[in-house]
């Protein structure tokens, strides 16, 4: 075995420049795939962290997954009803206090209840459609990310005397309103009240910044003429990954639709999966190309060393010995390439992590951003695993060919 290794090393060393090129090919493949994986996983994690941060982990609304069974269906054993008018239920989450209390007993995390309704803001002769969220400020602050996005004021300011409202900064701009301005809020039921702006937030999400408003829960209930009604419970879990499980359990217990953040952002998460597939394809292609480099050098060596093969076989080396010899040469190139590739990958990651850029647009002057990189030993292991497999295959094919060589043909050819 040591003898085979020695022969392999001599063969490789005998082709210095080609060996360097093959090793560099593998190294670049490994290096780029490591850097790419770090970047991809880093941005993915960053993206998901932002999702998880800005959204409620589970949102419970007063809708149901399937329409309620109607009393007529319970009463008559008919197969199908035509023209049945559904019974009008009381809207909102029924018996909210009990529901909230039962959730509080087991949900691992914090929760806030609210009433969400639509309305129109009227100010200076302009009407802007908004969604009105009725909240309890002190609880909301622990659940919502908006609490951290205030440009001016805060949720707590809602509790000061009078009717107060918190709006997105874009909305305020569109209306030409500012802190302290009193705007008119009109609800679908026709109720109209004046609210004083006591806070402005900027989430960075345009849709929210220009159409979301927060008032006290009590005020929202008055505006929509639904005293004590709740139609929205938001959960912020200690472990965001537990959201789907918690949501299922909530649905089982309350019967209301509970949407985990993964479901709410399904299309985005799917896009991430597609992105990963694209990445692995590209990385695989790079390493495949590197494999061709190895194939090339090993088969050149087998051709050049045909005489050595004949000598060794005539001395009594077996086919398996010869196969192993060239397989080892391929793997050695793969390993050397991996090792250099680790270094390249590490340096690339370091270089990328130094890149700074400013987010254009928005004009908010958000701070300088760096590329999010995720450092994982797995990337290194997977990349070199890939490289070794392709090196092994690339070495094995010419090795098999070489092992089959008949020494007599070569000895004859030499004479």
């Amino acid at each position, binding site marked *: 075995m*040591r*003898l085979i290794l020695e*022969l392999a090393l*001599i063969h490789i060393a*005998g082709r210095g420049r080609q060996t360097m090129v093959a090793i560099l090919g593998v190294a670049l493949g490994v290096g780029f795939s490591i850097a790419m994986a770090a970047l991809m996983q880093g941005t993915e994690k960053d993206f998901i962290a932002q999702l998880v941060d800005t959204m409620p982990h589970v949102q419970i609304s007063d809708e149901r997954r399937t329409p309620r069974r109607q009393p007529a269906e319970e009463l008559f054993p008919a197969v199908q009803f035509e023209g049945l008018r559904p019974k009008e239920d009381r809207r909102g989450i029924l018996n909210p206090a009990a529901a909230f209390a039962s959730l509080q007993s087991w949900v691992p995390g914090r929760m806030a209840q609210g009433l969400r309704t639509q309305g129109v803001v009227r100010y200076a002769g302009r009407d802007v459609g908004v969604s009105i969220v009725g909240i309890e400020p002190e609880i909301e602050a622990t659940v919502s990310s908006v609490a951290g996005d205030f440009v001016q004021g805060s949720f707590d300011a809602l509790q000061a005397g009078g009717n107060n409202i918190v709006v997105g900064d874009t909305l305020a701009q569109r209306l030409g309103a500012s802190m302290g301005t009193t705007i008119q809020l009109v609800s679908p039921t026709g109720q109209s009240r004046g609210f004083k702006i006591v806070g402005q937030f900027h989430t960075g999400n345009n849709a929210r910044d220009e159409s979301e408003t927060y008032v006290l829960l009590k005020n929202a209930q008055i505006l929509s003429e639904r005293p004590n009604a709740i139609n929205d419970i938001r959960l912020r879990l200690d472990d965001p990954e537990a959201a789907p499980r918690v949501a299922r359990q909530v649905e089982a217990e309350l019967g209301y639709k509970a949407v985990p953040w993964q479901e709410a952002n399904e299309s985005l998460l799917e896009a991430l999966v597609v992105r990963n597939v694209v990445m692995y394809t590209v990385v695989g292609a790079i390493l495949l190309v590197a494999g061709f480099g190895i194939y090339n050098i090993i088969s050149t060596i087998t051709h050049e060393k045909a*005489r*050595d093969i*004949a*000598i060794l*076989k*005539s*001395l*009594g*080396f*077996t*086919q*398996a010995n010869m196969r192993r010899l060239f397989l080892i040469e391929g793997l050695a190139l793969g390993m050397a390439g991996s090792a250099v590739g680790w270094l390249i990958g590490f340096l690339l990651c370091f270089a990328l992590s130094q890149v700074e850029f400013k987010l254009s647009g928005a004009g908010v002057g958000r701070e300088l951003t760096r590329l999010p990189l995720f450092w994982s030993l797995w990337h290194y292991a997977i990349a070199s695993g890939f490289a070794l497999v392709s090196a092994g295959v690339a070495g094995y094919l010419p090795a098999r060919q070489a092992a089959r060589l*008949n*020494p*007599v043909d070569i*000895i*004859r050819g*030499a*004479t």
Partner: protein
Amino acid sequence: MNALIEADHLTRILPAIVPVTLVRDVSLTVGEREFVAITGPSGSGKSSLLYLLGLLDRPTSGTLKIAGQDTSQLDDDTLARLRLESLGFVFQFHFLLPEFSVLKNVELPMRKAGRLPASQMRDRAAGLLEDLGLAGHLDKTPDQLSGGQRQRVAVARALANDPHVVLADEPTGSLDSKSSDQVFTILRDLVRKRGKTVVAVTHDMEIAARADRRIHLVDGKVVSDERVAQARA
């Protein structure tokens, strides 16, 4: 006299559109301590016969026994093992590994066989080379040696695993007459002093004339097989 090589109706046909018969129905027996020269015009199949006897090639028909063992049913790996342990080869071109030193080239078959500890391999290789007059050249690479010296290294390598039979394919074919003479003397001493059996293919009639036994081939057939009695005295 024990028969080391027993060939029985060996025929080797190269499969092609027009099949070429290299060796035609050759039967012969080679015993211990024999120095056999196989002669014949070029293309007469003398090298092909040697490759068959050396287990490098398989006959199309006929059987071959090496030291009493029938080789026709053995697989390639077993044949390789037999070559390694019971046969030594010397080719026209030395066929040494160019990257290995002279000493390492001679050690190679021993390392492959793996029967001796490393230090003994070294001593044995060095001893063989010294016996063949190469004491000062152990660490040189083959391309630093003359043709005759290389061929002597090849002989040392053939002896590495102490085989019974040394097969030589035109061992003096690419040498000048002085070096030829040296190599011939060495081969003859293998028989006389070390008790080996040597089978050498040669077209050099002068060398053939000094062998113990001459087998003459024409068109793959043995046309004469004569022993020279006085040479054994």
